[in-house]
C-alpha cells in the first residue's frame, strides 16, 4: 500500500515539476524577472537562480517520475517547495502584487494577493508528498529497484512490486 501511495506521490510531484520547469525553459529572461520580482535575492545572483531553476525543476521531475534516487529527490523537492512557500508568503506579507511565476509568467496579476493562499496550499500539499517520499522511498515501478536491486538474502516482494534497496544506498549517500 505504501509503495502505491509512494508511486502516486512520485507521479504527482514529478509531473508538476516537469510542467513548471518546461513552461519556463523557453523564456530565460522571463524567469529571471520572476525571481527578481520577489525582491528577496541580491541582484548579483538573480540571473543565476533564474537560469538554473527551470532546468533543476525538469531534472527533479524526471527523476521523480522515473523513481531514480527517490529519497534524495524527495529531499530537494521538499526543500524547494518550502522555499517557494516562504517566497510567496513573504511577498504576501510585504503587500507585493506579483504573479508567483510558478508556471511561467511574472507580470502583473490583478488582485494577485487573492491567489496567494491557494498557491501556498498547493505548495504545502506538494511538500507533504515530497516528505512522504523521503520517509518511504521504496515505491512501486521505480528505476531505483532496477538500478539498485535488493541485496542477496533480502526479501523481495516479487517482480514489479518495486522493492528497491534504495534505502541502504541512500543512507550511505546521505552520510
Amino acid at each position, binding site marked *: 500500500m505504501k509503495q502505491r501511495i509512494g508511486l502516486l506521490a512520485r507521479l504527482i510531484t514529478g509531473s508538476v515539476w516537469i510542467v513548471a520547469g518546461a513552461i519556463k*525553459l523557453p*523564456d*530565460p*529572461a*522571463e524567469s*529571471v*524577472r520572476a525571481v*527578481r*520580482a520577489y*525582491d528577496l535575492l541580491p*541582484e548579483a545572483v538573480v*540571473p543565476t537562480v533564474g*537560469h*538554473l531553476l*527551470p*532546468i*533543476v525543476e*525538469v*531534472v527533479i521531475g524526471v*527523476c521523480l517520475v522515473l523513481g*531514480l*534516487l527517490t529519497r534524495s529527490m524527495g529531499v530537494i523537492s521538499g526543500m524547494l517547495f518550502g522555499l517557494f512557500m516562504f517566497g510567496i508568503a513573504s511577498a504576501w506579507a510585504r503587500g*507585493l*502584487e*506579483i*504573479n508567483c511565476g510558478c508556471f*511561467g*509568467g*511574472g*507580470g*502583473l*496579476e*490583478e488582485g494577485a494577493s487573492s491567489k496567494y493562499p491557494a498557491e501556498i496550499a498547493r505548495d504545502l500539499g506538494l511538500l507533504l508528498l515530497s516528505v512522504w517520499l523521503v520517509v518511504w522511498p521504496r515505491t512501486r515501478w521505480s528505476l531505483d529497484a532496477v*538500478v*539498485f536491486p535488493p*541485496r*542477496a538474502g533480502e526479501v523481495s516482494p516479487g517482480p514489479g512490486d518495486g522493492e528497491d534497496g534504495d534505502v*541502504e*544506498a541512500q543512507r*550511505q*549517500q546521505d552520510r
Partner: protein
Amino acid sequence: MSKRNVNKTAERAARAAALKAEQERKEKRRRLLLIGGVVAALVFVVAAGFLVQNLRNTTGEAATPPAGVVDDYGVVVGDHAAPTTVTIYEDFQCPVCAEFEKEIGEELNAGIEAGTVKVDYRMVSFLDRASGNEYSSRALNAAAVVLDIAGVDAFKAFHDDLFANQPDEGTDGPEDDELIAAAAAAGADESEVRSAIENKVFAQWIENATEQMSVDEVNGTPTVFIDGELAGSTPQEYADAIRAGLG
C-alpha cells in the same frame, strides 16, 4: 564427530563468511559507483542546461533605441515643460492596460493638448505567451518604428489605435501587414516602415526595456507614476489619481 571434522566445519564456515563479506564489499562498491555515476550525469545535465539558458538570454546586449526616446526607454508625449508628468508602463497585449486606456485616455489627451500634463510612456513586452503570433512584441516593435520614422505624434496616434483595437488574449493578433496599414493611418510612410516592422529591428531594445522595468521594481502593467510617485494599483485608482492631478 572427530576433532578433525570439527576443525574442517569451522574452516568451511569461516571461508563462507569471508566470501560473503567480500561479496558485500563488492556490492557496496558497485552501488556507490552507480550512485556517483547517476549524480554526475544529473549534475552534467543541469550544468549544460544552465549554460544554454545563459546563452539564450540576450537581455542587456547593446541595442539601438528608436530616435526620440528619452532616458533610453521613455517616449514623452506632450509639452516637455508641462508641470505634471504621468509615467505609464504598458504592454500592447495587456487587457487591463486597454481597460485603463479606455477609462482615462481621452481625458489624458485633453490634458496633453492643454499643456498641463506630459506622459512618459514606458512600453514593454512580456505577453507574447498570451498571443498566438507574438503580437505583444510585434506591436511594440511597430510602435517603435513609427516613433523612429514619423515622430512622437504618430507614435501616440498608433498607440491609441492599437489599444482601441486590442486582440483578445490567446488569439492571433493583427499580422505585420495590418500593423503596417495602421502605421500608415497614424501618419508614417508605409514604404519606410515596412521592412523595419517585418524585420523586427527593435527586438533587442524591447528585451532591454522589459528587463529595465523589472530592475526598476515595476512588476506589472499597467503601472502608473505621477511625478515619480506610484499612483495606486488598479486602473480605477490610476485613473482617479490622474484626474486629481489634472484637476
